């Protein structure tokens, strides 16, 4: 048991999808996150930055003022490299590299320490478009200069033991970089089917993405944990007794604590998008995670 490592808690604004801009301002969201005793705020760059990719200096100032006022730090910045941006051709490496560079600079301006790029996928098991490797390699020096870690996410239906992850780890080995790591989305540990429905997604996407529990074993997490820079604490529904029927939080936390993970757990609520529901669900998750952490450390 590694007692010196501390878990850090945060929330991704993705949790508040649908509530942002309709019932929550950015300042409201920051206040909710701070009220949990959490310290980290994660954003989706193009989703949460007004005027993206060129926010006004006034907005940038208000972002930093908000962090200071609520006692929060900027954690992870989600970016996209839309490889299918054009109907008649794929994105080129140069175009993709320019997009990532733009997001790295913007993330740095806003104080983020990691950037999760999502490149368009070319298969149902989420193999990224092959431009991913040269696009990221061209940005490693910039990321190092800005003090940012680039970390693509491992997301269902891609498990940890998979060529996508093997390729990422080989990339780290080949380049010797410390500016590239992986991000784990806890949806890969899902053990039970969820019935959540999201507007605008095909049945196939819902079936592949949510209903089919991937149930990745904890030993696989242990194997890659030295390369994990960030954890998105994906969940769908926690009842009022604080039971999560889908994600095995006790096992996940025990594994992270025993193996000395000292990074963030950043809430990603992905359940029903009824107004205000996200706020209550994130509160339940933080209460649950902190209770489990106390229990696990008490038994150590």
């Amino acid at each position, binding site marked *: 048991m590694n007692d010196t490592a501390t878990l850090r808690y945060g929330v991704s604004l993705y949790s508040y999808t*649908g509530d942002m801009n*309709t019932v929550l301002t950015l300042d409201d969201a920051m206040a909710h996150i701070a009220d949990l005793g959490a310290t980290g705020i994660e954003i989706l760059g193009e989703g949460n930055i*007004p005027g993206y990719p060129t926010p006004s200096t006034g907005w940038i100032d208000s972002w930093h003022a908000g962090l200071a006022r609520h006692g929060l730090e900027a954690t992870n910045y989600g970016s996209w490299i*839309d490889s299918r941006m054009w109907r008649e051709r794929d994105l080129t490496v140069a175009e993709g590299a320019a997009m990532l560079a733009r997001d790295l600079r913007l993330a740095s301006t806003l104080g983020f320490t990691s950037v999760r790029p999502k490149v368009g996928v070319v298969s149902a098991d989420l193999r990224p478009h092959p431009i991913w490797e040269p696009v990221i390699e061209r940005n490693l020096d910039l990321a190092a200069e800005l003090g940012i870690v680039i970390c693509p996410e491992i997301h269902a239906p891609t498990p940890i033991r998979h060529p996508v992850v093997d390729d990422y780890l080989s990339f780290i080995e080949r380049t010797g970089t410390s500016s590239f790591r992986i991000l784990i989305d806890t949806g890969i540990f899902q053990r039970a089917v969820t019935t959540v429905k999201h*507007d605008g997604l095909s049945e196939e996407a819902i079936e592949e993405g949510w209903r089919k529990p991937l149930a990745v074993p904890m030993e696989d997490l242990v194997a890659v944990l030295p390369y994990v820079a960030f954890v998105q604490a994906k969940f769908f529904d926690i009842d009022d007794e604080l039971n999560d029927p889908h994600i095995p939080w006790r096992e996940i936390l025990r594994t992270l604590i025993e193996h000395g993970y000292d990074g963030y757990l950043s809430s990603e609520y992905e359940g029903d998008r009824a107004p205000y529901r996200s706020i209550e669900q994130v509160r339940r998750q933080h209460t649950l995670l902190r209770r489990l952490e106390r229990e696990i450390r008490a038994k150590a």
Partner: protein
Amino acid sequence: MLERELIQSRGFRNVVTGGDIAGFQLLLRMPNYRGVWASLIDGVAVRVGDRQWDAEQPLWTLQGRTFTIAELRASTGVRWQLDEPATIFVPHPGGLAPASTTWPWTSPSTPRTSPRSSSPPSSTPSERSR
């Protein structure tokens, strides 16, 4: 703040061009979780009662610039942002007649506007547009 429904009630009105009503407009909230580059927009088909307009017909106004669907697909640097509704202009000389209606409209799962009612809301679009 925007309204929760994808089809916003604010901004819905007939549009007067050169003294004549050229059609009507409505504001649409971006339905996904991250916004989208305009070149990726498929378009929006509109139905009001038994009148229909296919996805190629409406004009889009994003960030102060107005585009056809073909122009959107070729555009660079234009986005449909989460906090900036798109203004959809539907060409319809004479516009929609003012009438009372059931409100709110049902917002569908994709940006396809299909108001249940056969009439626009109980405002006077031709007056509001001036």
